[in-house]
């Protein structure tokens, strides 16, 4: 679909720099993103079913080590490429330029984090550092650095970007209010964060000594709470405006944030014994559509910008 517009596969995946906004077919790539992610999910869930029947977890492990890892890296790359193009579509001083600047930074942190976690700290053949003498000792801190990059750094930038986007909605007079179900969800998530920190406090009192890398990840859940608040405001605002391509972009961010929150809660639940294997594996699958949503968002924005520049109505 991307190649139909004269774009090489590598450029479409964000693995090579894109020359100009005319190089890409954002809507074609959006369809490609959705289809490839759906295919991966289908295979992944089939693999989970094989494990549940056979009791052999290597199927699930290999799925996430290789095809799952490659998909996450490809989606992160596309997110970065499209976010950067969207940022370039705004001139200095335009309000949305700051939003897309921070969103692009968040995407860059995501690429760095995914590379570190999925490739450079893994023992698979995809890792070019695997044969290096320093790698066995370095793998742990490479993984930790990846979690900090893809967690705290990424979410801080994304929260700032969505804040600027909300300012634009308010300036345009389109910012909606939260409804009581939204406030209830936010209250519930705030309760989960308090419970989580209480668990942590108890663990520290009982002798746990958190490492610096772990402490660097403590802001992740409060940042996710802020992101969920922003995502809900965007969702309500988009719903009030009616369906449109600009709304699809910000709705996709909201879906991504909601899925990441779900994945984060499942990780915490497993770490503290509230969720057991194999049910925690279901939480792993959430990261695939979450990454797809974050890649789709800038693709929709670019599609709207290109369609407006061409002077036609954006195709469905």
């Amino acid at each position, binding site marked *: 679909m991307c190649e139909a517009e004269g774009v090489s596969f590598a450029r479409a995946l964000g693995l090579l720099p894109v020359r100009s906004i005319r190089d890409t077919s954002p809507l074609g790539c959006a369809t490609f993103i959705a289809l490839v992610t759906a295919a991966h999910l289908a295979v992944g869930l089939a693999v989970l079913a094989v494990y549940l029947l056979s009791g052999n977890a290597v199927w699930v492990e290999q799925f996430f080590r290789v095809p799952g890892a490659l998909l996450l890296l490809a989606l992160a790359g596309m997110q970065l490429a499209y976010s950067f193009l969207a940022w370039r579509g705004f001139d200095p001083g335009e309000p949305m330029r700051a939003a897309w600047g921070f969103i692009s930074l968040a995407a860059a942190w995501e690429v760095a984090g995914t590379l570190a976690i999925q490739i450079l700290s893994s023992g698979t053949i995809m890792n070019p550092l695997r044969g290096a003498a320093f790698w066995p000792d370095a793998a742990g801190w490479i993984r930790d650095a990846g979690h900090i990059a893809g967690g705290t750094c990424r979410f801080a930038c994304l929260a700032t970007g969505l804040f600027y986007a909300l300012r634009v909605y308010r300036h345009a007079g389109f910012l909606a209010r939260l409804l009581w179900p939204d406030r209830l969800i936010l209250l519930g998530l705030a309760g989960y964060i308090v419970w989580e920190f209480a668990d942590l406090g108890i663990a520290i009192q009982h002798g746990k000594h958190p490492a610096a890398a772990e402490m660097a990840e403590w802001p992740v859940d409060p940042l996710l709470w802020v992101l969920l608040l922003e995502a809900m405001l965007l969702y309500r605002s988009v719903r009030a405006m009616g369906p449109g391509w600009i709304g699809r972009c910000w709705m996709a961010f909201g879906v991504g944030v909601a899925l990441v929150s779900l994945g984060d809660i499942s990780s915490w639940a497993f770490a503290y014994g509230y969720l057991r294997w194999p049910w925690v594996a279901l939480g792993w699958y959430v990261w695939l559509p979450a990454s797809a949503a974050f890649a789709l968002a800038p693709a929709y924005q670019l599609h709207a910008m290109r369609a*407006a520049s061409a002077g036609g109505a954006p195709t469905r």
Partner: protein
Amino acid sequence: MGEGERREADGAAGDEMLSRIRGAIGEWHARQSRESSLPAVKGRVGREIAPYLGPRASGRILGTVSESADNLLSTVGGVMSLFLGKRAANRFLDHVVEDILVRS
């Protein structure tokens, strides 16, 4: 003034009056068509921006446009610029002006 001269003068006055009446009718028709095409133009502009902003948002935007539609382009362009950038919004407005306002 003789009978013939009086008839000529009456004819000229009648022609002048007829010409003034025709001119007034023409002006009235032009004013009517201009005023009746404004809602149609606003409607068409609304249909152009709805796929981007959503139908309710486009309705709200057009609701702030004056009756004479003097601020139509600046209002629509301002909102489109916020979400799509000035460059894309300006090209979009070029299309709106060419396809809708000029040809209506």
